[in-house]
Each structure stands twice: as C-alpha cells, then as structure tokens.
C-alpha cells in the first residue's frame, strides 16, 4: 500500500487522480485492500467528513455549482418550483449538493434585540429564512453499501462511501435503502450516482470542491473528530447567544453516525431530513429469521398437502 496522503494542500503529492470513473485503470490507490472482517483500512487515517453549519449559510449555491463543475455532473435544468429559491428540489443522481430554502414566520431574536432589523410593522419582522446545503451523509454504517450486490459501493481509506462507476450495474437496490434519499439512478446512463466527498481531490490532499467554494465556511471539511469538537463549540456559543433552536444533526455516533453532519435551526424534517434515521441493514436477525420461519412454514405446507394422500 502506498504512503498515506496528507490532507494539507501542497504536500508534494503528484500525479493525476484516478479515484473513479476512469475505465480500465486499476492501481493500488484505487483498490486498497481491507482485511476480511475489518470495517476500516488498517492504516491510521483520520475519518474525513463535512460539518455543514446552516446558521451561516447564505444560500448562494456556490457549493452546488462547484460540485457540478468539478465532478462533471450533468447540468439538468429543472423548472422554477416556486418554493423559495430552491429549484433543484432534492439530492439525486445529478445533484450532489442541494441547498434548501425555508421561509418561516418566526422572529430572528438576536438581530431584533441588537436593533439590526428595522421592521416596518410587527408582522414584517416575523420572518426568518433558513438555508441549508444538504449532501450525502457518508454514514458510519451505510445501508447503501451493505445492500449493494456488486461491491460497487465501497468504503474509502478516508472513511467515506463511494460508488465505483465501472462496477455499478444499476440494480437500484441502494436507492430505497438510503434513509436520506441521496442515491438515484441517472435515467440516460442507468447507473447510480452520488457525492464522492471528492475522493479524487482528497487523494491529492485537496478539500472537496463544495467546501472550497463555500464563501461563509458554512461547509467545513476535515477530520471528523475535529469537526465534531468544533460543532459542539459552535452549538454552545449559539445557545449562550440565545439561539435556542440550534441543534446538531448526525453528530452523535451513538444515534446514527454520519460522516457529514449538520447544525440546524429547526426539526430535521423541516429541511427534508429524516428525524430518526435507522441503519435498516443492522436488523439482520429479524430479517432473515422471519424468512427462515416462512421457509419452515412452506415445508410444513407441502408436507401437509401430501398428508392427505399421494394422489
């Protein structure tokens, strides 16, 4: 296995990236081996991820654009939805970053107290605009990865979850397996596509395109444990400032571990996120146990059918 690639830019890593989507190339970099029975790579590499702090998102969609540019994601132009500034609607095969816009009749306490707002009337002041850049969560236990029958989805040395496009045969199993509705099949292409957390850039020690393009650092990239620490600090700061709405989503490994987690200002479902996601594939016993019972019942049924005579 090759040397570990430092994440700091300019660390002297040369050569073009061969992370994915290049047919016919197979190098130790693209296919590092995970020893059997082990979830992660043996080498000590920090798990990398995103912390999306929606409190500072300004809805500029630079992340959406940078992602499309870098990853060559088809620029499917949708229609105007009339749902605030959101015209991409949801994550999908052709949208790997999606900025949600939520308009609410709710006062922005801090600004009002500080006299930063000059509402014309009581009613006009009752408005806040939530924006949040959604992305693949790169789950600690990813259902999409578990159910993929070809091994196309795999866990990288950075702890992220990536689709190998030269393997995917478009069976579509990962699509309903994902609790966040992230994966989708590209109609004209037949394969499934999603955020790679810029695997190719990470290999060259660069941060993902969306994080680099984000002008307010709403999207932060780095080793996950550092990000979590940062996020907890930020949450504390907000609570002290009186922003009681603030809560972290996906930062707690004991609930549902996400490699990309969020600081939100309302319930997750308001942003289109599931309030209590579940690693469905962890229910191995109850899933197959029920099938074993059913198979037993089938045997009993056939036997019973002959109990009344062979003819």
């Amino acid at each position, binding site marked *: 296995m090759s040397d570990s690639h430092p994440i700091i830019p300019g660390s002297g890593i040369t050569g073009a990236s061969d992370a994915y989507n290049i047919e016919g190339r197979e190098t130790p970099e693209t296919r590092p081996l995970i020893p059997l029975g082990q979830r992660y790579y043996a080498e000590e590499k920090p798990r990398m991820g995103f912390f999306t702090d929606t409190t500072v998102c300004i809805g500029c969609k630079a992340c959406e654009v940078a992602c499309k540019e870098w990853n060559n994601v088809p620029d499917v132009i949708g229609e105007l939805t009339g749902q605030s500034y959101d015209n991409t609607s949801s994550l999908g095969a052709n949208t790997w970053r999606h900025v949600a816009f939520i308009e609410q009749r709710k006062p922005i306490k801090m600004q009002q107290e500080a006299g930063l707002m000059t509402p014309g009337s009581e009613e006009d002041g009752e408005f806040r605009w939530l924006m949040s850049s959604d992305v693949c969560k790169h789950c600690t236990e990813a259902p999409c990865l578990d159910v993929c029958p070809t091994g196309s989805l795999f866990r990288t040395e950075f702890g992220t979850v990536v689709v190998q496009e030269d393997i995917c045969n478009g069976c579509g199993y990962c699509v309903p397996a994902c609790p966040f509705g992230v994966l989708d099949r590209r109609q004209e292409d037949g394969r499934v596509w999603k955020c790679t957390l810029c695997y190719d850039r990470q290999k060259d020690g660069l941060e993902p395109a969306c994080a680099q393009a984000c002008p307010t650092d709403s999207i932060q990239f780095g080793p996950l444990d550092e990000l979590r620490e940062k996020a907890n600090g930020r949450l504390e700061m907000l609570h002290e400032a009186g922003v009681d709405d603030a809560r972290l989503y996906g930062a707690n490994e004991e609930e549902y571990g996400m490699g990309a987690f969020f600081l939100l200002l309302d319930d997750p479902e308001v942003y289109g996120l599931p309030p209590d996601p579940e690693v469905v594939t962890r229910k191995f016993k109850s899933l197959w146990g*029920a099938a074993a019972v059913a198979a037993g019942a089938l045997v009993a049924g056939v036997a019973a059918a002959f109990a009344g005579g062979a003819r």
Partner: protein
Amino acid sequence: MSDGRREPQPQISMTQQGGSLDGRGEVRPVPEEQVRSYYGRPVLKEPVWTWEIPWYFFTGGLAGASAPLALAADLAGNERLARSARFGALGGAMVSPVLLISDLGRPGRFFNMLRVIKPTSPMSLGTWVLSAFSGAAGLAATTDVLGIFPHARRFFEGVATLLGLPLATYTAVLVADTSVPVWHEARGELPLVFASGAAASAGACAAIFTPIEDAAPARRLAIGGAVAEIGATELMKHRLGKFLAEPYEKEAAGRYEKLATALSGAGAAVMTLAGRKSRAATVAGGAMILAGAAFERWSVFKAGFQSARDPKYTVFSQRERLHSRHRAEDEG
C-alpha cells in the same frame, strides 16, 4: 458527546401540536397537517424498480415452491405430479433471470453480480441462490425428460428444494431490508406473505398441468396457500398498525390487494368445491389463485412506492419512535 437534538426547548413536537399520541403511546389517526416536511417532498427516494420486479417476485416464488412440491411428489411416488412441479420450477427459473436482468440500469453488466458474495446484501445472496437453483431445477427437469439418471434426478430435486425455500422467501427480505417504512416495518410478516403466495402459485400451477386424479396434493397446497396468503396479508397489516397499513389500502396498492384477496379467495373456493371433479374448474380456480398471488406481490410493490413518496410515513413513524425512546429514557 452532547447532541443538540435532545434539547427540549422550542421544538414543535407532534404531541404539543395537538396530540397524536395518547397516554399509553397508542397511535391515533394521524393529523396529516401536523407532520412537518420540506414542501411536502419525500424524504426517501422512490425505488427505481420497474414492472419486472413484482413479476419476478411471483415467478421466483412459483419456482421456489415448486421444487419442494416436486421432491415430495417424487418421494410419494406421484410421478405425474412430480413432473408438473418440476416444469413449474424450471419455467419460473427460466423467466426469473430474464426479468431481473432487464430491470438493471446496465443489463450488460449483470455479471458484476457474480464478482462478490455479500452476506449483507439480500440481492447478492438471492442472485447466487437463483443461479444455483436454475441449474438444479434444469438438471432435474432434463433428466426427467430424457428418462435418465433417476437417482441423480432425486439429488437435483433435493438441491433445488434446499435452494427453493430461500428463493421463495428472500425477496421479502430484500424489500424489507430498505428504508421504505411499509416494507421495513413489515419485515416479520412479509416473508410469510411471500411464502404462502409461493405455495399457492406452485400448487395451482401444478394442479393445472396434472390430470385431476393425480393432482390432489397440488390442489390442497394451492387452496391452503391461497387462504394462508390472505391471512398473512391481514396479519401484516394488523401488525403494521392503522397508520402504516394505509399505503396497502389506498391507490394502486389498495386496488391490487382487493383483487388479490378476491381472486385468491374465489380460486380457493372453486378448487375446493369442484377441483376434484372437473379439470376445467381446476384450471379456472388455479388461474385465479395464480393471478391472486401475482396481484398480492404487485400490491406490496406499489405500497412501498406510495409510502416512500409521502414524507408523512417516514417522518411520523420516526417521530413516534423518537418519542417512545425519549419517554423510555426519561422513565428509566
């Protein structure tokens, strides 16, 4: 590590909004407007699977349950019934891969399924089971037609039976192993629905193609399977509860389910009353039972789409789960 989600402050909970839980945690009919969402958009993606998949659930079940029927008939010395069942198994095994491959986004890459054996993926295991089953069922039918290797034939039948049992049930595990609420939460009963439907189809198919004097066990299997299928479906809906059973009762899924129940019930009645005397009645009853089993799979298939499409099924059931977990934490 603390998580802001546990902060109790201004989160608007279902109970605060007007109460969807009563004191004992029982779910009341859901006030839809109280389930919050992002412009009513789904949280999950609807599956991309097309018409091939429910038909495969049907043909795979038919093939899988035909194998034990063939083996039992062979062991019992009912050669004509054994032959019909062998061909049922072979027929289902021949159609199934065609359906599965044509549903792939890249059918040409079907063989990528065979580059790994992945225990965590029901689809991976199922592909291997179906591939091996096809071989065994094919050999059993071939040795029968050519009239050669009677001992080997029984061996192939045994192998086909061992593989047929998972073949008839794994598809239920496959759909239950997703985030789709009406599939995942039905994981305890879906295999029973599929297995009884498989038994009904295998029995009906064999009864149709066997002279009535030799078809009694197949008729019994068809009737028993059809009745069990109706019962298992009701049990599944009961266990899901009023809220999550709803997708099985509305729109396309609801229509298919009513058809399935009617056809399975009527087919079982016809076969019970007249199957012994009339081949025509057996064929008619058998066709109804087969159609009932197919419609039942279509109902399950469609219900999954319907529940994925509407965020309330995802959001509300997860909210309920959160509430009961937090209540348990507060009490304990």
